[in-house]
Structure formats: C-alpha cells, structure tokens
C-alpha cells in the first residue's frame, strides 16, 4: 500500500512525515512573534551604539539568523531522537560544567565558559536545556502512581542539584536559581504534590542563614542593595537607581527613538545587555514597555498552547519547561531593572546583546517547535513507538 493513501493523521502518529509536511506543521506565527521581538532588539542595539549598526546590532542580526536556521533544523529532527539521547546530552553538559570548574581552579579564577576556538560555550546555558530535556524524559517514563512515591523523586532531584551545585561554585547565583526554578516548574507540571514543594521550600528557608554565610561579598551587597538601593547611590546601588531614573523619566510615551538621555549619556550601565529594557522603556515609554511585554506574553501563550495540544508527556513537559524558562528570563530581567528584585545577571531574551544566550534560546524554541511538529506522535514510556 503506497504511503500516500494513508491519512495525514495516521502518518502524524507514525514518524514518517515528509519534509514538506513537517515544515507545514511548524508554527510560523510563533516564528513571526519571535522575529518581531528580535527586530525590536536590533533597533535597541542600534540606538545603544548611538545610531550605529556596529558593534552590536549587526552581530546580533547574524546570530539571530543562525539561530533561526538552528531552530528550524532542531524542529525537523524526530522527537524520538531527543527522547533517546536526553540523558546522554545531560551527561555531556554535566561533564562540561565540571570541566569549566576544573579549568577555573587551574586558571585561579571564576570561569563560566569553555573556549572551543570558534565559539565560547557556556555549559551552564547548555544545561538549561539539557536539564529540562532529561527531566521531561524522566517524568515521561513515570506512571502517575510513581510520581506519588517520594522515592521516585530522588533521581530527578539529584539531576537538578548536581548542576546547581556546580554553577553555584562558579559562582553564578543567578543561573543556579534560574535552573532550580526551571526544574521546579517541570516537577510541578509533572504533578508532584504541592506539599512536597512546601517541604523543600521550608528546607530552603532554613538553609538561608547557612547560605548567607557562603555568599560572596558582592552577592551579599546585591541583596542588601536591593533592600535599600539608596544605601550606596554611587556604588552598588547606582545601577538600579539609574535604571529607575531612566525608566521613570521615559514617562508614558517615552523620549523617542535614540533620544533617551540617560542611556545615551552613559548614566545607564550595561545598556546593551542586562539593562536594555530600561533603555527601551526610556525611549518608548510605558507604551513601548507594555507592547514588548505583550509580545513576550504571546510567545509564552503559544508555548503553553503547544504544550497543551501535545499528546505525549515528554513533549508537554519539554514545551512547558522551556516556555516557563523563557518566561522566567523575561520576568527576572524586567523585574530587576525596575527594582522589584535584586540585581542578577540575567539578560532580556531575544533583545540583550549576547551570543550564547541567543543561540540557547533559539535552540529552545526549536525544541518547542519540534514538539509542535510531533505533537500527535505516539510515544511509549520507554521511548518506543507504541505501548507494547
């Protein structure tokens, strides 16, 4: 029987869609939304360089282009591949993290990246995807009864805590927290009981005094400065104060493109990376800020819808985990520049200048797209085709 006579529905359940069919399953609206946000980022980088494409905007465009291609490539790979190699990928990322730590010890300083000559790889960025992938695979393989058993939570907890510990050692408090929250969301979506979260949270709170002792001075300062930014207006509190001034002075409609005085006169620190939202809000006002926030929300909603429409647990958890991660990035960055949470080095997704983050992000979107393409696939608990 020729393949063509089978219904598309049938073939979706199998794994032998043609390339064209797969491409048609890709959500192009999703890509459009991502591109609009990225384009806004290009213009902000152009403005940050005082009206020049160099040195940031042009490179960011190239990276985004590569990212789009990577996303499409990842989306077209059969999702079974990810399921099969999830743990392998996780293991590689973990080894790289250890390698960075070892290299850091040898190099007598904190290092977060490995130089491969062509690219500098930040294993912690890689781990953000790897952890979601392997957790999704783990919970995909658990029955609903298994999830209720505390014993079955030991493995995923270890899976989370190993990289978190390594990243804390770097030390990168922000990324470690992001990783914990990201995996917490996967735990939550997988159906882990709420009281178990409460136990972990209580344990965490109890550990705060211990943790405080382990924090570096600069990290303590960040927390203290967050509680009272006026504590040190020219030192640690300077960033957040200047950010609030720039943002607030933008008003409802902003000062206009390229007209942001605070950012262009360099009162605003790191305007091309972590504080780029401030610049956008100064130049385009609350209207611009809310517009960007809406675009982000739409991207998140698309991710959620894809997760909900997926018929296999692996895909659901993967799409939801990655989308939640994306949301966390957006929230933490914007909340930080507006002085709602302490200053943590988290970039604004798709807009802040930065290569690794852009690529990781696009890979994440690629996986979400992959879930969308393969949403109706029958995926057994152990990665086979159908349930035996």
């Amino acid at each position, binding site marked *: 029987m020729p393949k063509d006579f089978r219904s598309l529905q049938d073939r979706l359940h199998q794994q032998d869609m043609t390339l064209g069919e797969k491409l048609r399953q890709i959500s192009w609206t999703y890509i459009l939304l991502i591109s609009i946000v990225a384009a806004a980022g290009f213009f902000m980088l152009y403005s940050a360089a005082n009206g020049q494409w160099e040195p940031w905007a042009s490179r960011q465009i190239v990276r985004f282009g590569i990212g789009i291609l990577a996303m499409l490539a990842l989306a077209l790979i059969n999702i079974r591949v990810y399921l099969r190699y999830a743990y392998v990928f996780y293991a590689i990322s973990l080894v790289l993290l250890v390698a960075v730590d070892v290299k850091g010890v040898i190099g007598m300083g904190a290092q977060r990246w490995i130089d491969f000559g062509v690219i500098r790889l930040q294993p912690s960025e890689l781990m953000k995807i790897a952890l979601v992938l392997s957790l999704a695979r783990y919970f995909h393989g658990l*029955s*609903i009864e298994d999830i209720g058993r505390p014993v079955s939570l030991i493995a995923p907890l270890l899976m989370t805590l190993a990289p978190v510990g390594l990243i804390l050692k770097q030390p990168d408090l922000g990324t470690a927290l992001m990783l914990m929250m990201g995996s917490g*969301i996967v735990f*939550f*979506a*997988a*159906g882990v009981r709420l009281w178990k979260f409460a136990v972990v949270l209580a344990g965490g709170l109890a550990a705060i005094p211990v943790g405080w002792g382990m924090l570096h001075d600069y990290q303590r300062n960040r927390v203290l400065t967050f509680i009272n930014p006026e504590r040190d207006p020219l030192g640690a509190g300077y960033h957040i104060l*200047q950010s*609030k*001034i*720039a*943002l*607030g*002075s*933008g*008003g*409802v409609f902003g000062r206009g493109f390229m007209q942001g*005085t*605070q950012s*262009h*006169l*360099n*009162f605003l620190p790191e305007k091309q990376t972590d504080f780029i939202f401030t610049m956008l*809000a100064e130049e385009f*006002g*609350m209207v611009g*800020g*809310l517009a960007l*926030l809406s675009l982000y*929300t739409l991207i*998140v*909603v698309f991710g*959620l819808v894809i*997760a*909900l429409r997926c*018929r296999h*647990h692996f895909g*659901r*958890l993967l799409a*939801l985990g990655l989308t*939640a991660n994306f*949301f966390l990035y957006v*929230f933490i960055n*914007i*909340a930080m520049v*507006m*002085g*709602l949470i302490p200053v943590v080095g988290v970039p604004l997704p798709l807009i802040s200048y930065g290569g690794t983050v852009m690529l990781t992000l696009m890979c994440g979107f690629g996986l979400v797209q992959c879930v969308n393409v393969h949403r109706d696939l029958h995926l057994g*608990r152990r990665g086979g085709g159908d*349930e035996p």
Partner: protein
Amino acid sequence: MSSARDSERGKLFTRRAMMLAAGQTGLTMALAGRMYYLQVTEAERYGILADENRISLRLLPPPRGLILDRFGREMAVNRQNFRVLVVREQTPDLMQTLDALGMIIPLTDKDKTRIRREVERKRAFMPVQVKENLSWEEMAQIQINAPDLPGVVIDEGLTRYYPYGDGGAQVLGYVSSVSEKDLTGEALLELPGFRIGKAGVEKIYDLALRGRGGNSKVEVNALGRVIRELERKEGTPGVDVTLTLDLEMQQFAVDRIGEESAAAVVIDVHTGEILVMASTPSFDPNAFNRGLTPEEWSALITNERAPLRNKCISAQFPPGSTFKVIVAMAALEAGVISPEQTVFCPGYMDLGEHRFHCWQKRGHGSVNMVEALQHSCDVYFYEVARRVGVDRIADVARRFGLGSPLGIDLPNEVSGLIPDRAWKRAFNGQPWLPGETLNAGIGQGYVLTTPLQLAVMAARIANGGMAVKPRLTRETVTTAGLKPIGAAALAPVGVNPKSVALVRRGMYEVVNNPAGTAHRSAFDVNGQRMAGKTGSSQVRRITMKERETTGVLKNDALPWKERDHALFIAFAPADAPRYACAVVVEHGGGGSAVAAPIASDIMKEALKRDPSRPRGPQPLPEVEV
C-alpha cells in the same frame, strides 16, 4: 489501562499548566503595574532626577570692568590670555607630545613632571594646563604645528593687565586669586582661576568691577564630559571706572621722582579731583596676576621703602615747617599777633630750662608773618605757637583736613595725628607741656600728616578756605553703574578769608622772593607762578653734644633711615589757584633742596598741560604787606 492512566496524567498536567499560566499572568501584571508606577505615578520625580543627572550649570566669568584715567586712557584692561592645554585621551604619547611642544615653548623638566602628575590625577578628557600667558608668536607657532601636536589645545581667557606697569600701581591695586577668607558664598569666587581686587581701586570697587557671572547649561554624560550646550545666559560685565587721575601726569611724576622713596599728590583745588597720586618705589601689579614666587613676595614685603604701600594715604610723616601755615592762621584767628607785628629771632628761643633752636643758627632778626613764612623762621613760630596754645592750633589744623581720614575712595587710608591737651591726657595721662606746643608749632613732635592731607590743606588754603574733599572718581561707583555726584557747593572751613589770604601771600614769597626758601624752584609759565612752603621734618633727636662738637650733622652724613623727610606743599597759579600739590620725600633731606624742585616740575607740567584752565571761582582778596 495505560492509556487511561496516560489520560489521567494528561489531565493533571493540564491542571498544573493552567495553574502555571495563572501564576505567570499574575507576575506579568505585577510587571505592568510596576511600569505604571515608575512611568506614570513617579514619572515627574524621575524626570527631575534625570535632568539633575545630565544638566550641569557652568558659570561664565564676566569680563572685569576697565579702569580708565580722566581722559579715557586705559589703566587696567583685560587682556586675552592664551593658554596651552593638553588632553590625555587625544594624545597617543604624552611625553612625546610634551617634548614636541618643548621645541616651541620653553618647558622645564619640573613643568613636565607637574603636568604628568596632573594628567594622571584628572580624567582622561579633562584638559591640563601646560603653560599660560603665551605670546602671540608662540601661540601662532603651536597652531601651525598642530598636526604634530595631538591633544594640544589652545584656550583663551581674560586676564587683568596694567599697560603702564608700576605707574599707578598703588592706586590701581592689583587682582589676585581668591583666598579662603574672601569666600562669601558667591559662586563666582569659587571658579578656578577667578581673580578679585586685593588693593587700591581694584579692591574698593571690586564688587562693581567684578560684574555678574552668566551661566551656561550644559548636558554632561555620566563621566562629566560636556556633550552640548543647552542654554547660555551671558553675565553682566563689570562697570568701567573712570578715575580723575591724569595718566600722563602720573607717569611724569613717577619718572620725575626717580629713585627716591616719595609720595606726590596733585589735587584740583575746586573739585578735589586727584590728578596725580604717585608713590615710589612701586611694583608691577601684573606680577600678582601671574602669581608671585615666595622670593618675589618676601622681597616686596621686607623692602624698607615699602613698595606695596600707597605712601600718599597710608604713610604719615611729621609735616615739619609746612605746618607753619596752620600755626600762622591759628595766630591770626586768635588775634595773638597781627600780620605786621614782628618777632625777633636770635637763632634760638629759651623756654624754662630748654633752648629751642632755629634752623638758621645765626637767627633771622626781626621778622613779620610773611617774612617768617618766607624764611621759615622757627623762632617766630615758637613764639606765636606759645601765644596761641596747642588747642587752637589743632582746631585750625582739623579745619584744613588734618588729623582724620579724608574719606578718599581707597582702602587703608590712615588718619594722621593732630595732638591737643585732651589727646595727650587720653594718650598717656600726662599733662601737655609748653615745650610740646613749641615743637608742634614747627610741625614736629606728635604731629603727623599724610601727603594727601598736606595736599588737601594746600588746596583749602589755595581756594580761599573752602572745605574741598579729595576724590578719585567723578561719579559714585555702584554695582549697578555710575551715578553722577551732585555738584554741592563747597562749605567754608570757617577761617577768616583774610587769614587764609595772608598765608597765601607768605607762600608766594617762599617761592618767588629771591630770599625765599624755595626760590630755586620758582618758575614762570605764561605769567603763571607757583606758591609753596618747604618743610624738613626731623626723625631723630639732635643732642646738645652733637650741636657743640660736630655741629648738626648734614643729611648726607647720616644713614638713610635717620635723614630728614623733605616736604613741599604748593599751589598754582599763585594768583588764581587751580592745582595744589604735596610732595614728601621720605628721608630725602631738605624740603627746599629735594622736595620743592620735584613739586615745581610737576606743577609746571600741570600748567603746561592745561592751557585752557578755567579761572577759579573767586578772585584773591587784596593783601597789604
């Protein structure tokens, strides 16, 4: 059933996903709310903070008012000051650039070290001064070589310049950097490089000359670098002050005095305008602006001839025989002697156990008042002073402007001293001694006057006893500008014009009678003659032993500090006076030999320069001798 289990798992996932979505919605709302709070509720506050961040107010120093002489010639001006600066961030190699610059303008190693230290301390875009007061040629050369001098900038500012140097230095004063105690809270004073008046006219009219600063609103970035100017408000330039001085005559007087330590004042007898106020030796006021080295400063301070002091108003001398005009008028006023009555001068006068000597050892014989003035006979004035008493002498002296500051518009005017009985009691509780009256009668003892007071005294005699007051400006100088002084009629000093006229007659004879003490200084310019009175005031005590052994030592034989002061007061033309003059040569010797010739030349010059002088308001009363 696994599929049922799966669907249960799916439902649980859906529930959880919805809870997550709700949570995310909540967080997103929090972000939007915060945005509203910052950009709407608090927008105004942050807008102000943003402007405070970026807008910096720079003061613009106003150009200082000029100081002009009576004919509008510039005595103090603002000169363009070319400074060469270097900006570190624009020069690839600072030392190399400085070496290249050193080929054009002289730069010592000390300069270079200072510059390097300053460059290291300041931010990279802040200019550091390499050298100021560049000549036009140096400036031009630097500009031509600009391509080889990266980061080298030429900046022009205004500095005070006194084109005539030391000519009227003590009157003009000088400007110098603001010191700690000058700070009043006025922002201008805190400008780096700002100068304020520290002496003379520059000091007394400092506020008016200073003007009001403008400001420039500039946008700066976080490092303080100026991005652009937003708004500029020019200041108000300082008020130009026109003095009554005649610059050329001032210069003439200074040159005429030459090396002596002296003071010369020429005053208009009707208006009180000061035409000449010369004090020597002088100093270069431009040096203060440049900044004195400690050696230069201590040389000025320790010089016994006090170059910094305006001797016309800040130094006081015993008036010597010039004071006899006062004693003569006091005697006529008191009626203790008539003009014709004579006193016999044997060369001395005994009072109690003391013998008071006349300067003429062999005596003058019988002299009346005019002759006594003409010969400057000491014995005549001992006698009339004894008859009048010190209190009545002091009264007349004060009427002619002695004994208190005249209120000239200059700082540091001293009062001089006219003693009387009450003063002595207050001074040391001792009663006044008759011998002290005799000393006062010839302008010695306690009597002290400033050269300006002597000039004013001569003027009041010359104008027939009108209380003319000296001044350096024709207008009242205020910060808002110049206000004309109302021409108020002069008040009489309250001495009988006949007494004044008789003294004038005496002063005429001093110069024009061949037997007069200042006859050598007589002149006739188109029929205009001078009247005057010599004076030599003793600064040491002549002992009996000296008189008996060596005789009174000649001035030449004494150290400078012990020589007599030479004095001369004068007015001219004698018949219708216009100018009065006082010359005091500190430790110069005799009045007739030293001071009178100087005064004579200055007066001659004044008359030559003023051919169309108006006649005095009142004709001389006729005096019979």
